[in-house]
C-alpha cells in the first residue's frame, strides 16, 4: 500500500518544528508501524535527508519507549496496543497518517518525535518504592496476600511508563501513571507503612514537574496500551484523603 505521512520534524528543543509530508510506498500489511517508519527512513537516508528520529527499543510492547501520537491518538487507533505492536494491516492504501510526538509541558521535545520523559522517573524517585534494604527481609511466604489484592496490585503494576496517559490527557496530567504506582504498593502489606507519605510525595512531585491536574476526562485509560484503569485514580484519591485525614500533611 501507499501512504501519505505527515510527520512532526523538529531539529532540537529550542527550534521551531513543523509537519512534513512524506510518501511511504510499498508498505506491506505485515509490517509493524515502526517497520514502516524504518522503510521511510532508509529511503530518506538514501535521498540524503535526515531520517525521522523516534524512540523505540524492545518492539514487543513492554519497554514503554515508543511514543507517537498517530492520527490524534497516542499509540494509534488500536486499543491496548503500543506503536511497536501496531501493524499496518489496520491501515488502508491511500491513507493519510499524522504522526506527532507526545505533547505536554512536562515532556519537552528533544528532536522530531522524541520527548524527554524523565519527569516520570522523578515521580518514582519521589516515593514510588518500598524502602527496603537489600537482605534482611522475611521469607517470601511470611506475608500472605489475598489473591484479589495481589491481582489488583498486578493490574496496576502492568504500567509500562510510556506516558501515553499524559499525552492523551487534555490537562497533561500524570495522574494515571502515579495512581498505578500508588495502587500497586497500597494493595500490598509491604507498601502500607509508607502509603501516606508516598501518596503525598508523589502528588507533590506531579505539581513540581509541571503535570496538570486530573479533571476526570478518562482519556488516559482509553489511550493506555496496558489498560490501566481510572479506578486506580479513585484509589489514589482515597489514599490521599486518608493521608490528609490522619496526619494533616
Amino acid at each position, binding site marked *: 500500500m501507499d501512504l501519505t505521512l505527515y510527520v512532526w520534524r523538529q531539529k532540537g528543543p529550542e527550534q521551531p518544528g513543523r509537519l512534513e509530508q512524506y510518501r511511504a510506498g510499498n508498505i506491506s500489511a505485515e509490517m509493524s508501524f515502526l517497520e514502516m517508519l524504518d522503510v521511510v527512513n532508509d529511503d530518506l537516508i538514501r535521498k540524503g535527508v535526515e531520517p525521522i528520529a523516534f524512540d523505540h527499543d524492545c518492539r514487543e510492547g513492554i519497554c514503554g519507549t515508543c511514543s507517537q501520537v498517530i492520527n490524534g491518538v497516542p499509540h494509534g487507533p488500536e486499543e491496548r496496543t503500543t506503536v511497536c505492536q501496531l501493524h499496518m494491516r489496520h491501515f488502508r492504501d491511500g491513507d493519510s497518517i499524522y504522526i506527532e510526538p507526545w505533547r505536554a509541558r512536562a515532556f519537552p521535545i528533544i528532536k522530531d518525535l522524541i520527548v524527554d520523559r524523565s519527569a516520570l522517573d522523578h515521580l518514582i524517585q519521589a516515593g514510588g518504592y518500598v524502602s527496603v534494604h537489600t537482605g534482611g527481609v522475611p521469607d517470601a511466604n511470611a506475608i500472605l496476600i489475598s489473591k484479589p489484592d495481589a491481582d489488583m496490585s498486578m493490574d496496576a503494576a502492568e504500567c509500562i511508563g510510556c506516558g501515553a496517559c499524559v499525552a492523551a490527557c487534555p490537562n497533561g496530567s500524570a495522574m494515571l501513571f502515579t495512581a498505578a504506582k500508588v495502587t500497586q504498593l497500597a494493595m500490598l502489606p509491604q507498601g502500607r507503612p509508607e502509603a501516606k507519605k508516598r501518596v503525598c510525595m508523589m502528588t507533590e512531585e506531579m505539581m513540581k514537574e509541571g503535570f496538570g491536574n486530573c*479533571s476526570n*476526562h478518562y482519556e488516559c485509560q482509553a489511550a493506555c496500551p496496558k489498560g490501566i484503569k481510572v*479506578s486506580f485514580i479513585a484509589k489514589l484519591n482515597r489514599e490521599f484523603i486518608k493521608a490528609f485525614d490522619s496526619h494533616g500533611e
Partner: protein
Amino acid sequence: MAVTGQVMILFVLIHVLGNSTLFVGGLNAYAEKLRSIPPLVWATRIVMLAMLIVHVYLSIRLTLENNRANPELYAVKKHLKATFASKNMIWTGLVIGAFLVYHLLHFTIHVINPEMSASMNVDALGRPDVSAMVIANFQTFSISLIYIAAMIALLLHLAHGIQSSFQTLGLNNDRMLPLIIKAGSIVAVILFMGYISIPAIIFLELIKG
C-alpha cells in the same frame, strides 16, 4: 472542588423541589415559610456563597494550571472519552456564575424588572405573590430564553460534574464507575427538566397568571 460542588448540587436539588411547588399552587406558601425562618435562609446563603467562592477559585486555578500543563499543540487530536461537557467545565461554570448574578438581581434583589417583583404585588392572602412574579416574567420570551440557556449550561456542568466529584473523592471503583457516570447524567437531566419546566410551561401558556 468535589466537596463544594456536591454541596451546591444539594442546594440545586432542594431549589428545584421548591420551585415545583408552583405547579400545585404552593409557591407563595413555600416562599412565605422560607421567609419566616431568616436564620435558615441566611445560613444557606452564607454557606452557598462560601462554597461558590471556593469552587470558583479552585476551578479557575485548576484551569490555568491545566492549560499551562498542556498547551494543546497537536495538529490532530482525537478525544476518545472526553466529552463536550468535560472539556468545557470552566465555560459552563462561568455561564452558570453569570446567570446566578442575573437570577439574584432578578428574583431576589429585584433590580431587574422591578415592576414585576413579588414584593410589589401581594396575593389574596396578603403574601408577596411570587407565583405571579414568576409567571409574569416567564411570559417574556427573552427572559425564558436566558433561563433555559443557563439551564443547558447547568445540565452540561452537572453531566460531568456529578460523576467527576465521586471519582475525585475516591468514591469509585470498577463496578461503580459506569453506574456513577450514568446516574450523574440522569440526575443532571432530571434537574434540567425540573428547572426548565417552569419557564417552558409558562411560556407555552399552559399556566396562566
